[in-house]
């Protein structure tokens, strides 16, 4: 077994521990920043959908504020955003390197995109359903929970899948700026030391991650559609 590994991955097999660690790090980054960003984006998405024109809590000031902020952040390329955030990241996470240092920029980087995705998922909920919720005498909070979220669930799962896949891409970028994870591993060994097997094995790992997310997403989305 070890021999096969050594034959196929002559360089990577020398640094197996580091390779495993980088996988764990990527999983940590995706999971922690994904969960926090999901909660934030759900809130922001709900704020956008409820305060938009004709929404259940229409408020053009709040809507415009969030709308403009999202556009602002989305217009900054991620790699520049990471650099710009470094002082703030130090302040919040205590460090700008390692997994801990990547979480804040990852969350700031993905949340605007995620919020837009959630907004579009929620806007797929038929206005007629909202109207009938209002006619039933449901409160705005009940409409958000019992209509928007409940009826939007399969779209929310779909956009979450897309977002997690983008997030996996971002973790590779953030790794380069001293973060660790698969991206960092691929750059350090594959790119800087020209060890092709390190690059390929990183690609395969990312491919597996993305496939699992995609399959899971499709499965849950189907389950929640009636």
């Amino acid at each position: 077994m070890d021999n096969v590994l050594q034959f196929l991955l002559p360089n990577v097999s020398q640094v197996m521990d580091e390779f495993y660690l980088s996988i764990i790090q990527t999983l940590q980054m995706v999971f922690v920043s994904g969960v926090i960003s999901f909660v934030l984006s759900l809130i922001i998405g709900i704020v956008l959908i409820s305060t938009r024109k004709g929404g259940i809590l229409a408020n053009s000031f709040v809507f415009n504020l969030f709308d403009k902020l999202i556009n602002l952040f989305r217009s900054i390329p991620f790699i520049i955003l990471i650099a710009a955030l470094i002082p703030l990241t130090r302040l919040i996470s205590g460090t700008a390197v390692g997994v801990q240092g990547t979480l804040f920029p990852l969350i700031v980087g993905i949340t605007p995109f995620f919020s837009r995705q959630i907004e579009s998922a929620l806007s797929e909920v038929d206005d007629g359903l909202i109207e009938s919720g209002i006619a039933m005498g449901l409160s705005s909070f009940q409409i958000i929970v019992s209509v928007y979220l409940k009826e939007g669930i399969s779209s929310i799962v779909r956009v979450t899948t897309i977002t997690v896949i983008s997030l996996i891409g971002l973790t590779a970028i953030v790794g380069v700026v001293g973060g660790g994870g698969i991206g960092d591993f691929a750059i350090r060994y594959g790119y800087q030391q020209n060890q092709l097997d390190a690059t390929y094995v990183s690609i395969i790992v990312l491919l597996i991650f993305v496939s699992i997310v995609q399959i899971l997403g499709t499965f849950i989305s189907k389950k929640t559609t009636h």
Partner: protein
Amino acid sequence: MTSEIIRTEHVVKTFTVDKKAHSVLKDVNLSIETGEIFGIIGYSGAGKSTLVRCFNGIEKANEGSIFFEGQNIVGLKSRELRAIRRKIGMIFQQFNLMPSRTVFGNIALPLKHSGLSKQQINKRITELLELVDLPDKRDAYPSQLSGGQKQRVAIARALVNHPKILLCDEATSALDPKTTKSILYLLKKLNKELGLTIVVITHEMSVVKEICQKVSVLDKGKIIEHGDVYSVFSNPQQELTRSFIETTSALGSVKALIETQSPVVQLQPGQLLLKISYTTSSVSEPLISYISRTFHVDANIVFGDIQILSGNPLGGLIVILSGQKSAIDRALEYVKQRHVAVEVLNHG
């Protein structure tokens, strides 16, 4: 002794789109009595949906008052409005059932936070499914139901809080004629058995004819005609009302026949093509046979359409009258004296 459940006074609603004001309701005044089936008819864009949405405050009237059981709901706080909405059921053209909930879940939705126990909710839903005749669809999802079944579930959901009144916005417009009949029949039954007041919004006069006792005709945000259904049908005052009524009667088709010079209405020289419309009880007189006997004219009935509306006959005949000119004149004179509306459609 009846009492008013909804009354609107000078209701005005204006939408502002791109800084331009569109006035959709202009001074709407109407009064709906408890226990009646009240029709509001108008063409698309007349403001029917907007008006009915003002009744439960989904749309806010800009001016005027809307009284629900004596309480003005214009300007109420949202919490007070929600309490009112639970007393007003509403159903829609597109049913608006929640696709991710079963029939049970849909009907139970308005009971959220009602404080009822599981058993009480269960019992109420069983009752309602019985009432709308869908006892075995409890666990089905909306996507597994036909349009008519969906509307029955929507009706059950609208009734779950024991509302006093049911607002139906084009509730049958997405259904085929047979299903429409069955839903209208159900509404009639609910009106009779529960004493439920029903407001029916529609653009189909046949729906009004089928179940309403009163009707208001809405045109460009104004009520242009109002009355009990029989008098509006038998004696419409407005051109628009007349055109709505023509859609429900075969008599309307005679115009098309004349225009296309159909052989059915081809006249010989001296003949007259008449439309004789009956109102109230005149139809029971043997009019046709009387004039042909007395005035020696021949009356050839081309076709007729007489229906029973609110227990009274309504409709008329298309007749070709032939004979001596003086005899025809005297016959026409007689018919007019009998308070029967005669319209000469064509001369031979």
